[in-house]
């Protein structure tokens, strides 16, 4: 029984993973011979993917279009790339025009997924290695946190440009506009307004210069949807008081209406966190809602992916696919629909109680993007690993939001002091009136 422990051989016949995969869309049987319902299913359009992969960046070397050097940086404060060798400057193509992302949202049907937003392959590794074409050395990039590396032998700069199936390479990137000094000043200003009850240790260790630039992964979604809501609304018809003196009571009469509303709408560039950790906005255990608050970005200005924008900047990898984000999208679309119909219910001066809602998503278009965020963090020790407090600055608009840890006893003391003072006034009024 020497082979008792050898695992059974994987299936190798036709139709197994050992087979050469057929071309996308091909089918081994003539479709015209199949029954109508099956044929319809087969011939229905596949999810369309916009191809945003750039052929000229395939080998991992971003070359200056003028001199061919690879030492390329983003020019601070602009969307331009600059060659550190010949000082040539050029502008990345805006994806909005390049792929027609702003148009035809009301014509969207089905799910259109840009090539950088495709599903993440289950077996994909986050470590990528390149063979340097300059000297032949192996250069490794850990796509969990960085998208560029420098060959330490010949000093060529590599960027991950191919759209690898691990989800690290997006379709587009929005370069930083807010400089570090600007971000530091904003954080200082934000915390400056929150000193009185801030945790002592936080104030002592406050060094906004430690702010880091991070590219966060997002899915930018265009959608075309309809929504129906139904419920009851009330219009006041009469208001009267009964009783006298202290027993005076106000009563209302109202007409009750059954209300139904329908709205067709399109949304343009709705951002959704495509990192499952960042998408978890549970304020009891994290402060991710801070990063969520600094949305939106001017995603219309995003440029086609080029790893040179990320030199020296950390990045987070996308780990959510389109289908995993769909419930969140539908929830947000319903909220938008409810906001849209509110103006049409103004005659119901006693309010409306919506009881049923329905959403029909006709079409969506998904583009994955890296968006720029300045992030300052402070870890507050405590039970269950404590709490990580973020202060985030939108790298484009400068919108700043943060979570400042609280010195609990100070805030409680202040609240109790004010409460006691108010109680004193109340007692004084009572005492003087009796």
């Amino acid at each position: 029984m020497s082979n008792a422990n050898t695992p059974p051989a994987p299936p190798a016949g036709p139709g197994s993973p050992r087979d050469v995969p057929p071309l996308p869309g091909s089918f081994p049987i003539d479709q015209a011979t199949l029954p109508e319902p099956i044929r319809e299913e087969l011939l229905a359009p596949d999810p369309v993917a916009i191809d945003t992969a750039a052929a000229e960046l395939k080998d991992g070397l971003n070359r200056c279009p003028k001199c061919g050097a690879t030492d390329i940086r983003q020019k601070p404060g602009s969307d331009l790339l600059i060659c550190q060798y010949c000082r040539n400057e050029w502008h990345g193509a805006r994806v909005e025009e390049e792929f027609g992302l702003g148009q035809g949202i009301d014509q969207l049907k089905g799910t259109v997924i840009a090539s950088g937003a495709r599903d993440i392959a289950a077996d994909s590794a986050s470590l990528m290695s390149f063979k340097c074409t300059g000297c032949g050395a192996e250069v490794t990039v850990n796509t969990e946190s960085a998208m560029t590396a420098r060959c330490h032998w010949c000093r060529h700069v590599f960027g991950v440009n191919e759209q690898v199936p691990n989800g690290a390479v997006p379709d587009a990137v929005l370069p930083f506009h807010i400089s570090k000094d600007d971000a530091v000043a904003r954080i200082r200003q934000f915390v400056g307004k929150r000193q009185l009850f801030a945790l002592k240790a936080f104030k002592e260790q406050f060094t906004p210069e430690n702010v880091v630039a991070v590219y966060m992964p997002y899915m930018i979604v265009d959608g075309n949807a309809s929504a129906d809501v139904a419920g009851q609304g009330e219009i006041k018809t009469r208001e009267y008081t009964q009783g006298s003196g202290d027993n005076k009571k106000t009563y209302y009469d109202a007409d009750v209406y059954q209300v139904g509303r329908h709205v067709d709408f399109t949304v343009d560039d709705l951002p959704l966190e495509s990192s499952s950790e960042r998408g978890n906005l549970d304020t009891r255990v994290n402060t991710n809602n801070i990063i969520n608050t600094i949305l939106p970005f001017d995603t219309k200005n995003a440029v086609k992916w080029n790893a040179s924008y990320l030199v020296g900047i950390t990045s987070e990898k996308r780990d959510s696919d389109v289908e995993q984000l769909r419930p969140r999208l539908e929830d947000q679309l319903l909220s938008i629909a409810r906001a849209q119909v509110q103006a049409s219910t103004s005659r119901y001066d006693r309010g409306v109680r919506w009881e049923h809602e329905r959403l029909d998503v006709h079409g969506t278009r998904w583009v994955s993007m890296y968006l720029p965020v300045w992030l300052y963090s402070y870890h507050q020790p405590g039970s269950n690993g404590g709490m990580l407090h973020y202060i985030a600055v939108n790298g484009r608009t400068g919108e700043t939001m943060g979570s400042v840890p609280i010195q609990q006893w100070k805030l409680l003391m202040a609240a109790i002091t004010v409460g006691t003072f108010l109680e004193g006034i109340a007692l004084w009024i009572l005492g003087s009136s009796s």
Partner: protein
Amino acid sequence: MSDDGGLWLLALGPAGATALYWALYRYYRNTDKSHAFERETTVEAKPVTGSDSKVGEVKGTRETRIRGDNVREYRKRVNRIRNDTDSS
């Protein structure tokens, strides 16, 4: 002043303390903030259509608003009707 009014005044202290605590807590920790996508996203909506039909009357209620008013609570999900023919 009646007893009723006096008892109401006694709640002033605890109510004031709680209100201040929560207001400051939110100002520092910003736990109530998130992306206001309802108003910060470009939404193009066709004119809202709908129906309104009177189904009844309420007489002599003391409530100033309809019970369960959620017209401004956009994110509070209500009973969702799903249609099976939804292709997406």
